[in-house]
């Protein structure tokens, strides 16, 4: 597995796209922080980067990379290697490369400019989001053989979690605003990794406004240390589940 991992990472570095990703993130975050005299505003803009750009790039890059390595995967499968190791090797290779790019691009300037607690939360969520969307990409590629359809599906996955899901939540909220829906809403947010990450950040950024929110329930749940742990655990679960399903399918897949 370690050897496969090494091959994957070397291959990705040769690919240079991840390098470009790191550079784009770096340019974005350095300029955001040096343009704003107030680091809080830079953090705010970076939040959007973490919540939109990172999942988009992670899911699409991983999908394309996996489709392009289809022949390499076939070659590996023909060797006396466990399929599980091959799959895990690809997953760790991809997520480590992307995570490293995120750390270099966005993590360093964050640690440099923003206050520690805030930057740690942003970095953690960014990394977790990367892991989740690489894992979702693995699931997408194993679902369909057709590259075009696969990439389309990946974009759809991103679009759903980044935009549509919140729209649906908003709709639900308005339709059922007369009912006590807070608990349900908390339950529903766990259905979207981006929402989970967003709320973890929100609780640090807009504490004062959330203190006013009548559903103290919400604050009590997510605001406490245990709530933070739970949302992080949910994100890990969001990374593990698609990987597990895709792994199981890959094991039985006729290549």
């Amino acid at each position: 597995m370690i050897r496969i991992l090494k091959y994957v990472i070397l291959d990705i570095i040769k690919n240079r796209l991840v390098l470009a990703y790191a550079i784009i993130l770096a340019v974005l975050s350095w300029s955001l922080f040096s343009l704003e005299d107030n680091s809080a505003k830079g953090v705010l803009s970076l939040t959007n980067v973490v919540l939109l750009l990172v999942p988009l790039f992670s899911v699409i890059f991983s999908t394309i990379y996996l489709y392009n390595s289809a022949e390499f995967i076939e070659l590996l499968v023909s060797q006396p290697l466990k399929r599980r190791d091959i799959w895990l090797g690809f997953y760790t290779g991809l997520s480590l490369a992307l995570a490293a790019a995120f750390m270099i691009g966005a993590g360093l300037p964050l640690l440099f400019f923003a206050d520690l607690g805030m930057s740690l939360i942003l970095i953690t969520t960014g990394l977790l989001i990367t892991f989740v969307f690489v894992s979702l990409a693995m699931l997408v590629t194993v679902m369909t053989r057709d590259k075009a359809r696969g990439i389309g599906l990946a974009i759809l996955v991103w679009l759903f979690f980044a935009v549509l899901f919140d729209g649906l939540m908003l709709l639900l909220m308005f339709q059922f605003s007369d009912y006590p829906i807070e608990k349900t809403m908390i339950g529903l947010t766990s259905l979207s990794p981006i929402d989970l990450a967003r709320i973890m950040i929100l609780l640090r950024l807009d504490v004062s406004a959330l203190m006013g929110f009548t559903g103290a329930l919400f604050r009590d749940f997510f605001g406490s240390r245990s709530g933070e742990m739970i949302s992080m655990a949910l994100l890990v679960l969001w990374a593990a589940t698609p990987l597990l399903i895709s792994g199981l399918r890959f094991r039985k897949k006729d290549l």
Partner: protein
Amino acid sequence: MKYGRAYKLTGVLFLLNSMRLYSIIFCISFSYFLSARTLNVGKNFTFQKLSLAFKAASAGDTILIHSGQYSEGNLIIDKPISLIGIGWPVLDGEKKVEILSVKASNVLISGLVVKGSNYASLEDPAAIKVYDASHVNIIGNKLEDNFFGIYLQYSKKCVIRGNKIRAYGKDEQMIGNGIHCWKSDSLQIIGNEICGHRDGIYFEFVTHSVIWRNRSHNNIRYGLHFMFSNDDAYISNVFRENGSGVAVMFTKRVLMINNHFVENWGDASYGLLLKEISDCNILNNYFNKNTAGIYLEGVSRADIVENTFDDNGWGMKIQASCMDNRILQNDFKGNTFDVSTNGDLVLNTFENNYWQKYEGYDLNKDGFGDIPFHPLSLYSKIAENNPSAMMLYRSFIVMLMDRTEKVMPSITPDNFIDEKPRMKPVYL
């Protein structure tokens, strides 16, 4: 002057000046009276008990209370005398009685530790209670664990200065106010520190009074509470971590200058709560990390000028029942929502404020943006009607909605507008 109604300012200055005058008069009168008598109370002194000294004293005498423990039940001061503590003598009510009842004018109480007044729901016992008197000075005492701290009723021209008032209340019903003033006039409340009471300072039917340089923090309800108290001023106070910072209700002509409202957090918590008031001036205050900086309901003709709203959940919640208020030259920065309202009716003026969220330009370089600013964001309106929608704040779809609304205002009232927003904050 610039903002009109500035004569109030001069009024306050006069009040502050007259403070000095009073203290001089007091000094003169003290030296005159001192020629009369000084009574010493303490273990090794003429009087062992306070009550005996009180009985022996005649008008104008000074009673020096030396350090020790005095638990003598309720003590009534019914002649103009001065009580001066030496080495912090402790007057302990042992949770059974009201400790000092002042029923005469021209009394000085200073340097005492007064603690343990009883709890009663009908007659409001206090550590020091002044009944129907004038020129009572309560200066530099420590009040610990009382039901009410200092209680004034029907009092005039009293000075409460430099006291430390601390209680450990947990429940609103079980604890009184730190400094409670009722139907009084011309009071000066200066440099006190109050914490752990229900309201730090409470004013009901109190007029022509000044509250200056106090620190009121960690009180259960309000740091400072006004009811039906006209023509007062509070200046340079700090209100930190109270249930709500300050509440001004059913009142006219109150001056609020240079106060700090900090970290008043909670579900229904405000830095400054204004309800049914008129003709007030709110100048140069600093609102930081409150759930809502100012909440206005039924407020008319208030001038809100040169305040800083920094890092609050809502800078201002201005209800549609407010009219003819002028919100000028304020700084709004780092708030989640700068302003919110609950209706479409806008009868207030916003002008020359600095909005950190403003994205306009200034071509003629006059320091003011060339395009007007709509401070009301769509989502603040949505969150107002449907608080649980806060959960979706900062998501992409919400950002999109807010942007669209900024470009084409359709849901938020389009006359809610700052025509000439500042490019740079008033205070950096």
